[in-house]
């Protein structure tokens, strides 16, 4: 198997171009910084500054909690190292089956932000794990074309779906992002209120807001 040629920045460009207005949770480190570099600061991006291992879980909560009339997708942009820190969430997602959830694993096989120490991902079949956990779909892609096609499929398919994107270790020069997390959360909430729901200030916790609430 040849080394992946797709860079993380290229992958992020493809995903952002295909789903420019979907609520997305960005994992810490390079994913957040490079998305900021290629797409700028966007209201639909919830940026995790740390909380390693929890990106998919936050996106899962969003997918479950958004109003029932929200027809779009919720995107998680996660790395292999962070996913492996909280791998149990794949079972939780498979159990709850949020139809809106699309999870990308940008897999470069290393903890790149800390110097490139290897993760265990090279020996792990993440697509098989997703299938084993009863996700509705999962794909493994290596090129920009495959990623674009998989993204079109993911946006049109009932979730949860997982796309493992094999990426290189090429990094985009990107500066540290030092914004106050309380502001990040409030900006994201404001965007959700104005963009996802028709009500600019929806009441908290109206029952039945999920697309697959048990009855």
């Amino acid at each position, binding site marked *: 198997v040849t080394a992946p040629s797709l860079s993380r920045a290229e992958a992020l460009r493809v995903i952002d171009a295909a789903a420019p207005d979907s609520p997305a949770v960005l994992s810490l480190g390079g994913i957040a910084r490079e998305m900021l570099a290629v797409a700028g600061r966007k209201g639909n991006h919830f940026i995790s500054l740390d909380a390693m291992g929890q990106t998919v879980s936050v996106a899962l909560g969003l997918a*479950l909690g958004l109003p029932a009339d929200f027809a779009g997708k919720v995107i998680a942009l996660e790395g292999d190292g962070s996913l492996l820190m909280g791998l149990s969430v794949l079972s939780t997602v498979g159990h709850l089956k949020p139809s809106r959830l699309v999870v990308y694993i940008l897999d470069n096989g290393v903890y790149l932000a800390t110097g490139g120490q290897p993760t265990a991902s090279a020996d792990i079949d993440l697509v098989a794990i997703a299938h084993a956990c009863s996700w509705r779909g999962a794909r493994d892609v290596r090129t920009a074309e495959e990623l674009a096609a998989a993204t079109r499929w993911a946006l049109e398919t009932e979730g949860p779906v997982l796309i493992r994107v094999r990426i290189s270790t090429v990094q985009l020069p990107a500066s540290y992002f030092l914004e106050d997390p309380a502001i990040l959360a409030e900006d994201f909430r404001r965007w959700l209120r104005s963009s996802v729901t028709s009500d600019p200030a929806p009441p908290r916790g109206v029952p039945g807001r999920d697309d697959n609430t048990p009855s």
Partner: protein
Amino acid sequence: VTDDARASEQDVLGQRSAAIIAGIEAINPDHVLHLASSTLKIVLSHFLNGPGARPGRRVFAMPREEEGVAIAAGLELAGARPVLIFQDNGIGNLLTSLLTLAQPYHLPLLAIVSRRGGLGEYNSMIHTISERTEALLDAAGVRWFQLDARTPVHRWADEIERAWAFARATHRPVFVLVNLMGS
């Protein structure tokens, strides 16, 4: 331990469990995230297969407390009403998630946390972490309230509801530590 003492313990467990259920129901959560707990068995049964298992409410297990905190963070961002229920011996699992996500992002989570390791405890080891719950939470700067024999059980439901409101008013996680074992 005499039969009378055992019966008394069961009475206390039943009364306090009912008060906790009433407090959580007053909040009307649309998502209840829980972890296994023998002392919370009555409470969890209410939400899993009792009157609390109702349309419009999702009740599910979190494999680890830290995962529950992150899912609840997403739910809070979306405007939902999640409540977390777990034991205090899981506090260590969630501190990083709490202090890198919920706390700094000002997300008002409410957790109902069962106390273990005190008088009446049957596990010979669990006190090694449970006795340090308050110290761990204090060190982490997590706001908590305690419900035990010092608070009349008829006040518990109101206190839980007030803790929910307090979390929202102060934009941060709030834990309610509940002693179901009699102390």
